[in-house]
């Protein structure tokens, strides 16, 4: 295999990068960790003529807490940066744990949260938990900057609302009174596996009643999607075994999985049922029924 030729640009400032992207438009791609981009190029699925590297831009890799904003993760933070971040583990352990399920150690040392989001692969592991935790993303263009909820970022497989001159620079997870959150991934082996089904759940309890919840399904639709009917079923109710089973069933009917090499539509749907329940149990720190580890 080989990479086609391309021009390589190493801007030292964000605006310079945006200008380059604006200049080259469709011919250019952003290079962050390269773990999705380079395989696509080697497999001859894409052949960008220009790569704009983010390596030279300062400040894209920080993970910090900003009062009034929440946890701000630089888009250039690698997946292992997310796994190892003390701050993230303290505030949103479910994000670190989601990152730990991704690909393998070597890939996680290069692949970035920004790349995982912008690549918009339906089975990506970070978007579901980030959406469950109400994340928004900062998109910096050559002229303006905007912040949009991550939930509104995805349009379809490998399609997002990002404009050709924009760079995703930050993921912001706002302060929230979440009782618990979790991401459970079902892959066909324990490392180096894409999600057949991925479910993220975040719950706010008021006493024993569910006050607020988000259930986000990954790998079972063209984009990560909220199982809104399943969410509504939980609101205002106390958590019981029966309710969790019902929530799982409803979530499984809301999604639109495809049949592919990793699983049939029928199987995926049933796994949404199983893993929605497991995600909620994990988020609520309830003992798992099977005694099985999820990953």
């Amino acid at each position: 295999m080989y990479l086609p030729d391309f021009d390589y640009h190493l801007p030292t400032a964000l605006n310079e990068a945006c200008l380059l992207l604006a200049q080259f438009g469709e011919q250019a791609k952003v290079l962050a960790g390269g773990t999705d981009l380079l395989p696509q190029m080697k497999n001859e699925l894409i052949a960008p003529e220009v790569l704009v590297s983010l390596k030279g831009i300062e400040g894209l890799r920080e993970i910090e807490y900003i009062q009034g904003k929440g946890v701000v993760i630089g888009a250039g933070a690698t997946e292992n940066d997310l796994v190892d971040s003390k701050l993230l583990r303290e505030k949103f352990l479910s994000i670190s744990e989601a990152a730990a399920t991704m690909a393998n150690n070597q890939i996680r040392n290069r692949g970035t949260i920004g790349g995982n989001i912008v690549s918009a692969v339906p089975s990506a592991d970070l978007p579901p938990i980030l959406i469950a935790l109400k994340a928004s993303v900062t998109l910096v263009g050559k002229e303006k900057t905007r912040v949009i909820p991550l939930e509104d970022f995805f349009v379809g497989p490998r399609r997002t609302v990002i404009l050709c001159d924009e760079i995703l620079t930050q993921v912001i997870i706002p302060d929230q009174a979440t009782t618990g959150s979790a991401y459970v991934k079902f892959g066909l082996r324990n490392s180096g596996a894409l999600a057949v089904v991925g479910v993220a759940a975040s719950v706010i309890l008021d006493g024993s009643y569910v006050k607020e919840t988000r259930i986000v399904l990954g790998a079972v639709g063209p984009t990560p999607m909220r199982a809104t009917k399943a969410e509504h079923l939980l609101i205002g109710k106390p958590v019981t075994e029966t309710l969790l089973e019902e929530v799982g069933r409803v979530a499984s009917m809301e999604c639109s999985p495809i049949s592919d090499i990793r699983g049939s539509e029928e199987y995926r749907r049933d796994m949404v049922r199983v893993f929605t329940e497991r995600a909620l149990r994990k988020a609520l720190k309830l003992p798992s029924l099977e005694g099985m580890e999820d990953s």
Partner: protein
Amino acid sequence: MVPIRNIKREKSRYAIDLVINGDPYSLAVKANALLLDVLREQLNFTGTKKGCELGDCGACTVLLNGKPVNSCLVLAVEADGQHVTTIEGLEKNGKLDALQEAFINNGAIQCGFCTSGMILSAKALLTSNPQPTEQDVRKAISGNLCRCTGYVNIVKAVLSAAEQEERTSHE
């Protein structure tokens, strides 16, 4: 007559500096040159292997600033100014690293093709976690495929090396 696109692109060479196994190397590379190929073909560090070219097997693992990465997915230009450790860099003054000894003595090497990458992943583990559990070891090498050993003796070797280092540090 086939138009040859972008002659400029092909002629462009980027000057990069790599510190490999502690030594400085100044190179001129093309934009599309992968770190794996620069190591193997330009610099003759053939200990790093090409197994799948897509980051699935780990045979090309090197340490980039101490962290294991798949060198088949790192552009050489992206490694500019950084530290690379290949398998050749583990031996110091003719003395093998404890991991290398442990691999040799614990039957952890059969065909040897995964060995370079496997040892480097283990090296990074022991550097950050000198007392790993079996599960820690399995996690650390889960991005390195081996077709020969079932990982059994590899795990034993890494745990043995950890134990050996622990003993040496107390002497």
